[in-house]
């Protein structure tokens, strides 16, 4: 059994190497979170960073279900919202009664709120996976969403329930009035939650969640009840979603029905899927991108949802692994040293693809301005160039960009595929690709 002993010590050496890299990554993340507002210190970027932080926790919590356990939920915002409402009610009670609970602990209240409801609802929901689970999650989402408008004393009706984050006991002289202090509070919880959720994937439960995702039938024959596994995963997802909701309540100083609605549930699915559910860091990328798009696109165009839809369809069709999947595809090429073979084809493809994208955007904006929002004038600006939406020339340019861009881009995409095949087969020969 010497070879067994050797392989076991290999594993030990490997895992200690992984540990080092693992802790290094978290230290870098912590430093980045501290330094970020010092570099981008405007009020706007602080607000953006705060929203991104909340979105990251929320998307990671969603991925406990989608990526880790294979549960597609259409109602995850229920726990985000209930966490938010729990936080707001406790904040108001703390302020009114003078309890000694400082603001930094409030996200935990949100988490407990999410956890309690997940424990209550989850047992029935997680009995089955697949379509049944997805449908029930949709139903629960609608149920809680509509009751938020009916149960006024709890949810505050349409206007929601507001609160004052500065009215809680202060610690270390922090009032949490300025956005920078709220940012650091959120950053702290982002780091703690992300580490906890990563650690969860490395536990026996986390591994069995993956097994349930891959093959729930077989899990029953290695001693596990997949129902219990799904229930535990669901409860953890509810807990961390509640933390995100609690942070949102602190950030906005309000909780309302929008927190737990279908739009919010859709957004987290969207962020997780675009980022890539197969990798732990995928939802982080997705949360960053989607929040930026939400903030940026809404001020640029009135039909921003259309672009969301196009991006989503594009990812589902062409990159089902999301952004993380696209990035990680390159890892074996980097290891094999063949990445240089595909980069030139990317650069060649960039220009026609960009032209195609500009053509599509110009067409969409022209049509939207022409038909939907005619009152806003006829001038659309693209890359700083003004286009008159009523001028035939604009329509012509858009058509040329779309058709011409597509024809040229298709050729360059084919060349990417060819370059990719060559690079991948060399990587395979060198043993970096299975």
């Amino acid at each position, binding site marked *: *059994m010497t070879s067994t002993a050797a392989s076991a010590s290999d594993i030990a050496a490997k895992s200690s190497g992984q540990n080092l890299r693992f802790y290094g990554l978290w230290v870098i993340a912590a430093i980045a979170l501290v330094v970020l507002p010092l570099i981008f210190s405007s009020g706007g970027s602080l607000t953006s960073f705060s929203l991104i932080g909340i979105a990251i926790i929320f998307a990671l919590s969603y991925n406990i279900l989608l990526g880790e356990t294979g549960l597609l939920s259409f109602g995850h915002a229920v726990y985000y919202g209930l966490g938010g409402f729990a936080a707001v009610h406790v904040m108001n009670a703390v302020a009114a009664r003078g309890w000694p609970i400082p603001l930094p602990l409030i996200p935990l209240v949100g988490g407990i709120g999410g956890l309690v409801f997940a424990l209550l609802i989850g047992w029935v929901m997680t009995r089955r996976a697949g379509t049944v689970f997805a449908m029930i999650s949709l139903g629960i989402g609608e149920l809680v969403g509509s009751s938020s408008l009916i149960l006024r004393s709890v949810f505050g009706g349409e206007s929601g329930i507001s609160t004052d984050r500065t009215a809680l006991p202060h610690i270390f002289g922090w009032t949490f009035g300025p956005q920078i202090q709220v940012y650091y509070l959120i950053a702290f919880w982002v780091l703690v939650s992300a580490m906890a959720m990563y650690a969860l994937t*490395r536990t*026996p439960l986390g591994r069995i969640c993956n097994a349930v995702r891959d093959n729930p039938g077989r899990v*029953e024959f*290695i001693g596990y009840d997949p129902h219990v596994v799904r229930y535990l995963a669901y409860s953890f997802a509810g807990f961390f979603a509640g933390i995100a909701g609690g942070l949102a309540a602190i950030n906005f100083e309000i909780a309302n029905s929008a927190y737990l609605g279908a739009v919010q549930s859709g957004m987290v699915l969207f962020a997780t899927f675009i980022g890539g559910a197969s990798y732990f860091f995928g939802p982080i990328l997705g949360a960053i991108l989607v929040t930026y798009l939400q903030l940026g696109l809404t001020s640029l165009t009135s039909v921003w949802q259309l672009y969301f839809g196009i991006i989503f369809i594009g990812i589902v069709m062409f990159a089902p692994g999301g952004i993380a999947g696209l990035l990680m595809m390159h890892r074996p090429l980097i290891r094999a040293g063949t990445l240089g073979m595909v980069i030139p084809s990317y650069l060649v493809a960039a220009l026609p693809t960009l032209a195609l994208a500009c053509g599509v955007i110009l067409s969409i904006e022209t049509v939207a301005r022409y038909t939907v929002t005619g009152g806003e004038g006829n001038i659309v600006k693209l890359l700083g160039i003004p286009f008159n939406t009523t001028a035939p020339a604009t329509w012509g340019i858009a058509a040329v960009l779309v058709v011409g861009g597509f024809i040229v881009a298709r050729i360059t995409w084919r060349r990417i595929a060819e370059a990719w095949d060559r690079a991948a087969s060399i990587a395979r020969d060198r043993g970096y690709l*299975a």
Partner: protein
Amino acid sequence: MTPAIEVRAVEKHFGNVSIIKDLNLSVAQGERHAIIGPNGAGKSTTFNLISGYLSPSSGEIRLNGNVISGLRPFEINRRGLSRSFQVTNVFARMTVWENVRCAVLWATGHRYAFWKNVDDLPEVRRRTAEILEDIHLSHRRDVPAGLLTYAEQRELEIGITIAGGANVIMLDEPTAGMSHAETERAVALIRRLTEGRTLVIVEHDMSVVFGLADRISVLVYGHIIASGTPEEIRANPKVKEAYLGEEAH
């Protein structure tokens, strides 16, 4: 001594269709027992009934003397019975190492633990490494199970089945679709890994059956028509008739 498995008067109907009729089977502790029979005889259904995938319409199944009929598969598994599947049934996106480790976790008492680092469990690591060594897949430990060759997946299937340390191992056509050389390797593997345990095996390859089994039961149309040592089964006129009848079609 209490038999490892005892099936008493078990019946299974799907609607009006009766698949298993008055099934009686007894497998002694430490015995290697093969179930043979023509296609559609109900061999896989028998496996599914014993392992809890299906529950019997009537009758009783005992494992080491305790009634298990009606229990869920994971409850039966925890009582020391583990089975493999005829169609490869692994965790496709997880690595070979993770596949085996998952099958080790319950038996080593870690259950649903979410407060332990799975990489820091020496007992789990040792047993997983041993099993991988046993099934000759140590060199493939980091490959996703879905990317293994067919024969490797069959070996992994056996590895997952034995990893929990169950006393009673049930293998459903472990050598189906294997070449002659692969079959020989698999039989040697099964013989070695089930040493000291009870083995129930469904198999079509008669050389495997007669080479491996201490006792053989012949299942025809959901009923066991003969049960005995390989010599007795070879000489049994009812068995000859059933098999010749099947081949005459």
